[in-house]
């Protein structure tokens, strides 16, 4: 039995649970919808979500109820809800499980969110590679529509909500909410300059809310069991509820584990994920997806909540925890992530577009034992000139692996460079042709 009460993964952890409408209804599914639509005022739904303390599960951790509150109250035209199912942060694979194993849980959340913000159309922007997930969602939407939970005049309340699945096409940046909107409009996924924010000028320039799959999946539970119940779970007052953490890397049992926020990394890695896969001790871990700075074994007792991880110098981000054992080259690990960011930079802002290329080239040079000591300063200088100088947070994310590995494992960079220098003593003629 799991040590902690499961909320989001509860249904799918029952033997034989298929994720069909009948299965979902048998576990009390769509009761929140029945109890809320037409019975609780939309503004009260928003208030309940705000009181619950629910924060976005996509990465930024913005309070969901507050986000909804930014929509203009007096606006008469259409509003939109976009479900961000573009799960692309390396190390993160929870939304895929939530969508494929219990699609109705998130669909109920979507309809509730639409009701709260007054949207009649919702688009699920799912990453293009997840063909199976999009098929499962489309089937579930069909079931829900036939049962009157989605569509016109839901359960006779006069409320309309339509939901469509929109497949992205394999661009990491489209997980950024304004890039997602651009992509959904049929354009290249380039993030927009903010402000204006999507709350006022979102999809088709209309008021829009973009929420992550896991965020939306929490809504039926909050409305059924109450904001106070939810607010007491985890690490109140700022990090409430559970999170589905994705553990990957050198552990015995990688996978998704739902635990209340506030448990320690030590518990997650050693109890839930079974500890290290071999006898080697842990060397490093990434606490919240590829965009989060690396942490060391000294940080194992840090609590998994937004504030504690931030205080430790990293971020809880998307909940992707990647563990590396002793013997893993940190320069190599940082280079792998840097190659990812280089590949995924959308090209809109020069510091990120050019900088990611320079960072990869410099890192490759060091890794190939052709680096020079001044490369370390070059790396830090480049990082400093990318972070905070781009339209979206990608710039801050891409420098995290290099900055953090240089902070904690500078000696590994230095020893690779020393090897390069030693080689130069033997072959002085090679010194001039190191590029």
């Amino acid at each position, binding site marked *: 039995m799991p040590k902690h009460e499961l909320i989001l993964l509860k249904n799918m952890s029952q033997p034989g649970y298929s994720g069909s409408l009948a299965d979902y209804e048998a576990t009390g599914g769509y009761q929140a919808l029945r109890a809320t639509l037409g019975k609780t005022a939309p503004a009260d739904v928003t208030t309940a979500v705000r009181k619950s303390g629910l924060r976005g599960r996509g990465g930024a951790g913005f309070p969901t109820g507050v986000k909804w509150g930014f929509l203009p109250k007096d606006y008469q035209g259409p509003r939109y809800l976009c479900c961000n199912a573009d799960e692309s942060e390396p*190390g993160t694979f929870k939304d895929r499980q939530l969508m494929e194993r219990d699609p109705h849980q998130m669909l109920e959340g979507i309809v509730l969110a639409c009701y709260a913000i007054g949207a009649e159309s919702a688009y699920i922007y799912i990453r293009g590679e997840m063909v199976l997930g999009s098929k499962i969602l489309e089937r579930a939407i069909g079931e829900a529509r036939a049962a009157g939970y989605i569509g016109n005049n839901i359960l006779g309340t006069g409320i309309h909500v339509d939901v469509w699945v929109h497949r992205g096409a394999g661009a990491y940046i489209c997980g950024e909410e304004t890039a997602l909107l651009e992509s959904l409009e049929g354009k290249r996924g380039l993030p927009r300059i903010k402000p204006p924010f999507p709350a006022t000028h979102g999809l088709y320039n209309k008021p829009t809310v973009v929420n992550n799959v896991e965020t939306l999946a929490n809504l039926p539970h909050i409305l059924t069991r109450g904001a106070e119940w939810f607010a007491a779970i985890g690490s109140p007052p700022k990090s409430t509820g559970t999170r589905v953490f994705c553990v990957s890397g050198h552990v015995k049992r990688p996978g998704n584990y739902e635990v209340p926020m506030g448990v320690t990394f030590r518990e997650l890695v050693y109890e839930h994920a079974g500890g290290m896969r071999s006898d080697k001790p842990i060397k490093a871990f990434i606490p919240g997806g590829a965009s989060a700075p690396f942490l060391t074994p000294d940080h194992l007792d840090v609590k998994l909540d937004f504030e504690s991880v931030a205080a430790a110098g990293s971020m809880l981000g998307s909940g992707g925890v990647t563990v590396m054992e002793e013997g893993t080259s940190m320069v190599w690990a940082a280079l*792998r992530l840097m190659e990812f960011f280089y590949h995924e930079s959308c090209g809109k802002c020069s510091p990120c577009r050019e900088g990611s290329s320079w960072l990869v080239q410099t890192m490759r040079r060091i890794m190939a034992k052709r680096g020079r000591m001044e490369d370390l300063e070059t790396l830090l200088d480049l990082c400093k000139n990318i972070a905070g100088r781009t339209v979206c947070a990608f710039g801050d994310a891409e420098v995290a692996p290099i900055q953090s590995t240089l902070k904690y494992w500078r000696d590994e960079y230095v020893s690779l460079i020393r090897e390069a220098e030693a080689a130069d003593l033997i072959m002085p003629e090679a010194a001039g042709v190191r590029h």
Partner: protein
Amino acid sequence: MKEKYQKEIDEIISRYPVKRSALIPLLYLAQQEHGYVTEAAMKEIAQLLRLTPPQVYETVTFYTVLNLKPVGKFHMQVCKSLMCALAGSDTLLGWIKTKLGIAPGESTPDGLFTLSAVECLASCGTAPMMQINDDYYEQLTEAKVDKILGDLKTSGTSDLKSGPYMWPLPVNAVRHEG
């Protein structure tokens, strides 16, 4: 394309208040037809959505799932990001290269397989993994790859492909160790 898929095209366009939103879904339809997006298809889609051909082309070039060149019958995309690399994806990619005799970016002469090394596909808990056409294959080993390649050659599909994702499986479910 228009004659063959008229119903699908109309349905796709009807989902959005602004026609251009239908662009990526229609490009998928075109790719389904030929395995890649042809120039003729791009022109046709531009006409359907009242866009200029460059507006369609600039969108296609942004997205990695859309191919502008023909690919083999089976497009093998092996994840090379850090999380898969920690679980041995480099060795696995080497194995596939040897088995197929091609490097990433190349296709086998018979046109059956195209190999690509790609970035994270959101299966880090079941690494190493690859995607072949629409299907995910996870917790790969050399033996599994051999079986998948054999299955694809003989029947065009493999029962090793992933179903609805959940890992770890519930405690009382049957668990196969990767």
